[in-house]
């Protein structure tokens, strides 16, 4: 069968018409694609991370002195701020990925580049968050007494450091696995297409 023989039939063919062609109605809908879903997830994360610390502050607002000296709470707030900044950065990356009016090749290359950058940032941010909490656990007992932390500090330092190292390794593999499951296939698919366009 020759492709050129079918050109006329192809151009006359109307059987592909979708049911709903009300353009006005269609543009009122929200995008349901994965990029829109990602943006929504980052927006939710930003709101959630802003509400939780505000809630804790409101709970302790009666005792301002205790509140201002609560190292754990302020550390948690710093962590939430970090997550908000990270989510906002990712939100902007996804925004850039949404532009669909580029040349197809340029668009694909941009998507690969942004997705890889986002994954790299995520890896770094998670490492930084873990390091932050380890430092917190190690340093806080010098300023404030928390029964749980006292117990942990009664464990020999060598064992504690081995556990921390184990946590880093575990986090590295867990993150790689999650990234592979969530974005790996899609990234591979995009890279194959970019290669195909060379």
């Amino acid at each position, binding site marked *: *069968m*020759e*492709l050129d*023989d*079918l*050109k006329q*039939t*192809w*151009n006359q*063919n*109307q059987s*592909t*018409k*979708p*049911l*709903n*062609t009300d*353009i*006005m109605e*269609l*543009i009122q*809908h*929200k*995008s*349901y*694609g*994965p*990029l829109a*879903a990602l943006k929504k997830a980052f927006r939710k994360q930003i709101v959630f991370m802003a509400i939780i610390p505000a809630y804790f502050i409101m709970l302790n607002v009666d005792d301002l002195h205790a509140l201002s000296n609560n190292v754990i709470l302020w550390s948690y707030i710093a962590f939430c701020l970090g997550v908000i900044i990270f989510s906002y950065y990712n939100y902007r990356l996804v925004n850039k990925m*949404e*532009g*669909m*009016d*580029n*040349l*197809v*090749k*340029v*668009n*694909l290359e941009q*998507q690969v580049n942004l997705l890889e950058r986002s994954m790299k940032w995520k890896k770094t941010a998670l490492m930084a968050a873990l390091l932050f909490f380890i430092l917190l656990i190690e340093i806080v007992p010098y300023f404030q007494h928390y029964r749980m932390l006292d117990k942990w500090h009664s464990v020999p330092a060598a064992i504690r450091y081995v556990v921390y190292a184990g946590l880093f390794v575990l986090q590295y593999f867990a993150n790689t696995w999650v990234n592979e499951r969530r974005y790996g296939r*899609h990234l591979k*698919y*995009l890279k*194959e*297409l970019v290669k*195909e*366009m060379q």
Partner: protein
Amino acid sequence: MQKLEGEKEFIKHISQHELMLYKVCRVYAYSDADRQDLFQEIVIQLWKAYPKFKGDSKISTWLYRVAINTAISGLRKKKNLVTSFEPTSIPEPAGVYDQEHCQEERLQQMYQAIEQLNAVEKAIVMLYMEDRTYLEMEEILGLGQGNLRVKMNRIKEKLRQLTKNY
């Protein structure tokens, strides 16, 4: 007022080229529901990108870019959308029809063969079937004309192999 005029103009452009958009959906989605979803997503993306359209290229070139980009990379929610398959041979037609039916049947066979191409090849073959020039294909896809010609020849051969039983 200006927004209303923009909307009217946008709807006019879409209505003039809707058959072209349906064909993108036909090539990239394989069930009516998926085609409907893809059509909706393409229209939404076109509407979002419309304020940036300054008329530097032909409206059809711009529409193709957004539609193909959306079909290729914007939709990965459903597994049966925008995927490619390992080549298998296409089933033979059941009976003998009159000329028109026969041609229609052959077109459906061709669509089935096109389903087995990857997303980039689908875009190239679709633009070729739509009688777009290689220059216009270059402006849509970003591939050089020489490269497009080579790819088109390979695709033709691939489709010939896939439909050789017909």
